[in-house]
C-alpha cells in the first residue's frame, strides 16, 4: 500500500501541474513580440548570457554540507537504537562528534566558513 501511495502522490503532482499548464495554454491569449521573450533586466536590452563563471563561495559551502549531511544520515539509525544499546552508543557518538568537530574546526580555521 505504501509504495503504491508514493507512486500515487507522484502521479497526482504530475497531473496537477501538467493539467493546469495545459488548461492555461488552451485559454490564455497569445501574442508575439521579440522583446517580450528576452530575460528581464530592468527594462533595458539584455547584456550577454547569464551562464557565466560564478562566485566559488557557494560551491565551498556545498562541499562542506556534503560531509555533514552524510553524517546526519549515519546519526539517524543511531538515534533509533540509542536507548537499547545505552552506554556504548553514547561513547561511540562522542568519538564520532569529536572527529566531526575537528573537521568543522579545521574548516573554520581555514576560513572556509567566511564569505568572500
Amino acid at each position: 500500500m505504501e509504495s503504491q501511495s508514493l507512486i500515487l502522490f507522484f502521479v497526482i503532482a504530475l497531473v496537477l501541474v501538467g493539467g493546469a499548464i495545459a488548461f492555461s495554454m488552451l485559454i490564455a491569449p497569445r501574442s508575439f513580440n521579440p522583446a517580450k521573450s528576452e530575460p528581464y533586466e530592468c527594462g533595458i536590452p539584455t547584456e550577454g548570457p547569464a551562464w557565466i563563471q560564478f562566485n566559488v563561495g557557494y560551491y565551498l559551502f556545498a562541499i562542506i554540507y556534503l560531509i555533514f549531511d552524510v553524517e546526519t544520515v549515519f546519526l539517524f539509525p543511531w538515534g533509533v537504537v540509542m536507548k537499547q544499546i545505552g552506554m556504548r552508543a553514547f561513547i561511540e557518538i562522542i568519538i564520532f562528534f569529536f572527529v566531526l568537530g575537528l573537521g568543522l574546526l579545521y574548516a573554520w580555521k581555514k576560513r572556509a566558513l567566511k564569505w568572500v
Partner: protein
Amino acid sequence: MQNLYDFSILTGAIHESLSRSMSPGWVTFTELVIIGLVFLLFFALLGLFLVYLERKVCAIIQNRVGPNRVGKWGLLQTIADLIKLLIKELIPIRKSDKFLFNLAPFIVIIASLMAMAALPFAKGLHAIDFNIGVFYVMAVSSLGVVGILLAGWSSNSKYSLIGAMRSGAQIVSYELSVGLSLLAIVVFSGSMQLSAIIESQANGWWIFKGHIPAFISFVIFLIASTAEINRGPFDLAEAESELTAGFHTEYSGIKFAFFFLAEYINMFIVAGIAATVFLGGWMPLHIGSWEGFNHIMDFVPPIVWFFLKTFFIIYVIMWFKWTFPRLRIDQLLTLEWKYLLPVSLVNIVVIAFLVLMGWHF
C-alpha cells in the same frame, strides 16, 4: 474516549463497503483514486487559504485591513487571483533551456506534495505511515531545492541565477540544523515513525517532557526550517528589493503560481512536522493529573488539535517574516555554521546523556 474520533473506523468502513462489490485489485485502485482526489482538493484549497491568511496577518501587523472586497472578508480574493493567473499568457524565454525551464515547477510541486502525504492529521488519517517517516519527509522536502536551482539556472537571467545560487547555499546549509533538531526527538522517542512518535507523547509533549534540550531543538528547528522554506527574514532567494523576484523572475502565469503555491505548502509541511514531533501532533493538551481539565481537552477532536498547533506555528513563521529585516548572505551562513550547527551538535550529546540516564519523564 480515544475511540470516538478514530478515523480508522471510517476508512475501515469505506474499505469494507468497497470490498463487498468489487475484486481486491479494483478496491485498491478505487481507494487510491479517493485518496488522490481528497489530497488534490486539500492541497489546492490549503494553498489558497494560506496565501489569504498571509495577507491578512501581514495586514494586521501593518495596521491595515487587508483583502476585504471579494467575498465575505475577502475570502474569495485568492481564488480570483488564481483565475487571473490561469488566464495569463505563459511567456517563453527565447534563450532559456526550454526543457529544464518547464520541468522546474513539476519538481517543486512533486516535492511538496509527496512530503505532505506523510503528515498524520489524526489517528488513522494518514496517507503514508513509513517506519522512517521523519527521514522520508526530510529527504523528499529537500528535493525542492533541485527545482529551485533548475528554475534559476535554466531561465538564463542574472536575477534568477543569483537567487537560485543563494537559495541553494541557504537550503543545503540549514538542512543540517533541521536534521539534527529532528534527531533530538528521534533519540528521545527511539523511533522514526511519525505515528510512533505521536504515541510516545500520550503522557506529555516532547517540548515539555524533554526539558531544556528539547526546547532548544524546537527553537533551532523553527529558525532552520524558516530558512529551509525561503521565508523572511531568510528570503534572500527572492529578495524583491534587490533581485526583482529571485529564481522565478522569468516565470509567468500559472507556472509562477506553482512556485508560489509550493512555498506556502512547504510552510504548512514544516509547521505540521514541528507540531507532530515537538507539540504532540493530534494529542490533546493534558496538564499533569488535573482530571477535569484533561477530560474536557479529550472532547476536542484530534484533527482540530493538529490544525490548531500547525496554524499556531504558521502564524509564528508569518510573524517572523513581517517583523525581522532580511539578512545578508554572509550573516545567514555565519548564523548556521558558527552558531546553530555547533549548538545543535552539543545539544544532541546532552540529549543522548539525558536519555542514557533516564532523566526524561
